[in-house]
């Protein structure tokens, strides 16, 4: 896999800087995404999945900072690139959509211009050409009457429409990798499915790989071939999406699966009540010793408190970081 991987993340460490101290907000995270592959990162808020994405696109800002490890994009190390070089990748080869479509667009510019900007920035187009291409891009994300919509300002559009504009911006330059950070969380349920379908269709058509980030394991399993589960700054399990559902290996993943509502056939098998995982995600500044999940884990033993578990490859594919994995 590593030979033809589009993106390789190796032992990534991201620090939260508080005064003079550095806390490992993300530690030893390793994963890879192949060309055109859809990879999911799932976990509760605060587990480090969003800042991992920000680190990939070089947008970490104080109090967060890169702490170590390697990020290889098309085999080239990008974690130490200069700002200028990173800018050539950003938006062009790697692009990102964010959670809040309501505030992610500049309120003072027509949306067409905000899309057109991409062609001017990265493709050397003139504004005139770019505005024309923006109409096409808007049509591409299935916005009706795109030639009129380009002149609209963000506040005149609905949340779903704005997220379509964001997708048009992100995919304008046909990037190799799209980072989608909770792209549907802020939207109505009915709109969510349309937006996800749009991301899936367009990325498949362009051959764009997608890193999908969500707290919703169900959504991730629907969209992605493989899934990484994060907890308290660590990647605790990485498997094929279907496997994760059937045979979760890490106790945290089991908890996540058990907390999902089941629909249709599987629902009749039995559980009547949704399970929840007791306790809360610890703060970055107060991660526990040993396995970071141990205070909430039902399978906890002495070793879980004493020793940080190593990553173990699973016989049926994938990896897990647990002393007592299933």
């Amino acid at each position, binding site marked *: 896999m590593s030979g033809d991987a589009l993106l390789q993340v190796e032992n990534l460490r991201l620090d939260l800087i508080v005064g003079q101290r550095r806390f490992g907000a993300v530690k030893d995270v390793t994963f890879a995404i192949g060309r055109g592959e859809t990879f999911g990162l799932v976990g509760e808020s605060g587990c480090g999945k969003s800042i991992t994405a920000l680190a990939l696109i070089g947008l970490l800002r104080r109090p967060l900072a890169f702490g170590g490890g390697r990020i290889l994009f098309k085999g080239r190390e990008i974690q130490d690139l200069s700002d200028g070089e990173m800018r050539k990748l*950003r*938006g062009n080869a790697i*692009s990102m959509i964010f959670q809040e479509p309501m505030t*992610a667009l*500049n309120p*003072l510019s027509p949306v067409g211009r905000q899309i057109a*900007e991409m062609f001017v*920035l990265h493709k050397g187009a003139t504004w005139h050409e770019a505005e024309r291409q923006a109409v096409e891009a808007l049509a591409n994300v299935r916005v009706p009457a795109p030639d009129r919509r380009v002149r609209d*300002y963000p506040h005149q559009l609905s949340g779903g429409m704005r997220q379509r504009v964001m997708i048009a911006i992100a995919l304008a330059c046909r990037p190799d990798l799209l980072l989608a950070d909770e792209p549907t969380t802020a939207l109505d349920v009915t709109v969510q499915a349309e937006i996800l379908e749009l991301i899936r269709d367009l990325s498949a058509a362009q051959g764009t790989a997608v890193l999908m980030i969500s707290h919703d394991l169900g959504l991730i399993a629907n969209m992605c071939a493989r899934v990484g589960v994060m907890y308290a700054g660590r990647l605790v399990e990485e498997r094929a999406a279907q496997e994760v559902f059937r045979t979760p290996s890490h106790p945290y993943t089991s908890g996540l699966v058990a907390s999902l509502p089941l629909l249709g056939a599987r629902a009749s098998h039995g559980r009547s009540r949704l399970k929840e995982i007791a306790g809360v995600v610890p703060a970055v500044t107060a991660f526990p010793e040993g396995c970071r999940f141990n205070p909430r884990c039902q399978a906890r033993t002495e070793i879980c408190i004493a020793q940080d578990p190593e990553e173990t490859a699973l016989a049926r594919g994938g990896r897990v970081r647990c002393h007592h994995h299933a």
Partner: protein
Amino acid sequence: MLQFVFRRLLQAIPILLAVAGLIFLLFSVIPGNFASTQMADGRSVVDAESIERMNRQFGLDQPLATRFATYVGKLATLDLGTSFRTRQPVWHLIGERLWPTMQLAFAAMMFAIAIGVPLGFLAALRPGGIVDTVSMVTAVSGLSLPKFWLGLMLMYLFALQLGWLPSFGYGDGALRNLILPSVALGVAPLALLARTTRAAVLEIMNADFVRTARAKGMSERRVVQWHLARNALVIVLTTVGLQFGSVIGQAVVIEKLFAWPGLGSLLVDSVSLRDIPVVQGCILVIVLFFLVVNMLVDVLAAVIDPRIRYS
């Protein structure tokens, strides 16, 4: 856009009317009237008959409601009445004072904008840094300075000790005469603008759309110029408009200190002399000036920000 301007104009009319009503009432309910205060205050001896004559002449013997109706009727034809003292039309007295006050207010505001906005901007780029700390300490000090004392100190230093600038007077509108009063008047809005700009830039710097701009691969310079500056400008503009009110208010003191022949000195002199029509006229014109400036600022903000245009 035209619709917005029209709507904004319509909003200003009731306020202006209410101000007219308020100051009319204020000066009508006071115990005694102009003629008797003249007797108590002025040194001249006025007999009962001339009081009577004066009251009739100025219509002060009519009932309140009639007087108000007459007053508003005259206002509608831009007639502000006649000065008790000089017997000249108030409009005439105000007319020759308006331009110096506008000069002073605009010069003070320009000074405040030219220094305050860049200062706040620089401070926000490195919050907690040296520039930030120094400029914010300067700003809070500037807000705390009594303007007329600052003016007095500037006058002492630059006019009387160094002799670089004239110490007072209008000097037929020469720039040299304008410098000291406008600096004294501009320091407070400068400080406030520095603080507002800093807060606005800091807030927008963390806005989602600025992150989007960076994620697009835009250079930091373009992010600042294109996305940050324009958005901060809207907030700064609104502050400028509101600050005009306090600048015109404070101009009264500065004009008095520097013997500047503006509306403010006319107002203060008329207050001391109880020349009520002139006081009323001055306040009305000052409020009108403030409203007009704010309207222009709002229109300018609406040009930049579509949300204001369509709301």
